[in-house]
C-alpha cells in the first residue's frame, strides 16, 4: 500500500469534511490552564474585596491600634495580590499553543506550584498576624483595647487564639487551594508525564 496515496484518499473522504454544528466563537475555552487562570482571577477578586473591607474598617474603627492592625492586614493582602497577579501574568504570557508544548506546560506547572508553595509558607507567618488583628478588632467593638491588653489574661487568650486559629486556617487554606487549583494542576502534571513518556 502506498501510504501517501491512501492518505490523500483519506483526507478527501473523511479528514477534511466539515464538523457539523461547530460554532465559530473566539472567546470560550474549557482548557485546564484557562480554568487555572480563572481560579487566579477569582482569588484576585477576593483579595480586592478584603482589601476594600480592611480599608473601610481602618477608616471607621475609632481606636488607633485597630487602625494600625487593619493597615497591616492591607499590606498583607497587597502581598497576596502581587504574588497572585505575578503568577497569573506568568501563565498568561507563557500559555501559548504555538510554542513547545512540553516546555510551556512544565513552566506553568513549576511556576504555579512554586507560587502556591511560597504562599503556603508565608501564610504560617501571616495567620498569627491575622488572628491578632481579628482579636483586636473583636475587642475594640465594646472595650478599649489598650486597657484590656494591660491584663495578663488577655495575652493568654490571644496566644490561645493564635495557637488554635493558625493550624485551622492553614488546613482550610490547603483545602481551598486543592479545590481551586488542585485538579487543574493534577491534569497538567498528567499531561506533562504523558508527553514526556511518549517523547
Amino acid at each position, binding site marked *: 500500500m502506498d501510504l501517501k496515496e491512501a492518505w490523500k484518499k483519506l483526507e478527501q473522504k473523511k479528514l477534511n469534511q466539515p464538523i457539523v454544528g461547530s460554532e465559530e*466563537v473566539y472567546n470560550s475555552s474549557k482548557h485546564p490552564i484557562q480554568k487555572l487562570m480563572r481560579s487566579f482571577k477569582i482569588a484576585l477578586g477576593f483579595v480586592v474585596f478584603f482589601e476594600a473591607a480592611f480599608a473601610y474598617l481602618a477608616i471607621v474603627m475609632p481606636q488607633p491600634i485597630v487602625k494600625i492592625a487593619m493597615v497591616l492586614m492591607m499590606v498583607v493582602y497587597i502581598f497576596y495580590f502581587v504574588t497572585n497577579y505575578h503568577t497569573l501574568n506568568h501563565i498568561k504570557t507563557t500559555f501559548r*499553543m504555538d510554542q513547545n508544548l512540553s516546555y510551556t506546560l512544565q513552566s506553568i506547572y513549576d511556576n504555579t506550584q512554586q507560587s502556591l508553595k511560597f504562599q503556603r509558607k508565608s501564610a504560617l507567618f501571616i495567620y498569627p498576624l491575622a488572628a491578632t488583628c481579628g482579636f483586636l478588632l473583636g475587642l475594640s467593638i465594646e472595650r478599649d483595647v489598650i486597657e484590656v491588653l494591660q491584663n495578663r489574661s488577655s495575652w493568654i487568650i490571644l496566644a490561645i487564639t493564635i495557637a488554635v486559629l493558625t493550624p485551622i486556617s492553614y488546613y482550610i487554606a490547603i483545602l481551598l487551594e486543592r479545590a481551586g487549583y488542585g485538579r487543574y494542576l493534577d491534569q497538567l502534571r498528567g499531561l506533562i508525564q504523558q508527553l514526556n513518556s511518549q517523547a
Partner: protein
Amino acid sequence: MPILERAFTELINQNRGIIYKVIRLYVANEEDERDLFQEILFQAWKSYPRFDGRSKFSTWLYRVGLNTVLTFKRRPVLVVPHENLASLNISQAKTSTDESEALYIAIRGLPEIDRMIITLHLDGYENEEIADITGLTKNNTAVKLHRIKDALIKKLKAE
C-alpha cells in the same frame, strides 16, 4: 469586524481543513469534535497577535491544533484500542477506499505523539518542520518516523 479579526478569519477559512483533520485523528465523538473545534479556534485567536509569519500560517495552525488537542480534556475511550484493530478487517482492504480506511484505523491506533508525527509526514512536512512543531529533536523525529512507518506498514500488510 476589526482588521486583525478579518485577517484571522480569512486565514482560518483557507486552512480550516487542518483543524478538521487534527480533530478527526484524535477525537471520536461529535460533542468532543465541536468542543475541540471551538477550543482550537480560541487558542489560535489568542496566539494570533504573536504570529510573526516566520513559518507558514498552515504550519503554525497545525502546531496550535495539535498542541490543543493533546492538552484538551477529552471524554474517555476515544482512541481505537490496538486489540480491536484486527476485528476491523484491515487485512481485507481491497479497494483504495478500504486502504484509506485501514490507514485511518491504523493511525488512530498509534500513541498520540506518534500519530502527530506520521500525520505531519504524510501531509508533506519535512523532518525539520515536524521537529519544530512537535518540540522533538530532528534526530529523534527521524528515528521515530522510521519506526512508526515500519510499524504502520507491518500492521497494514500483516493481518
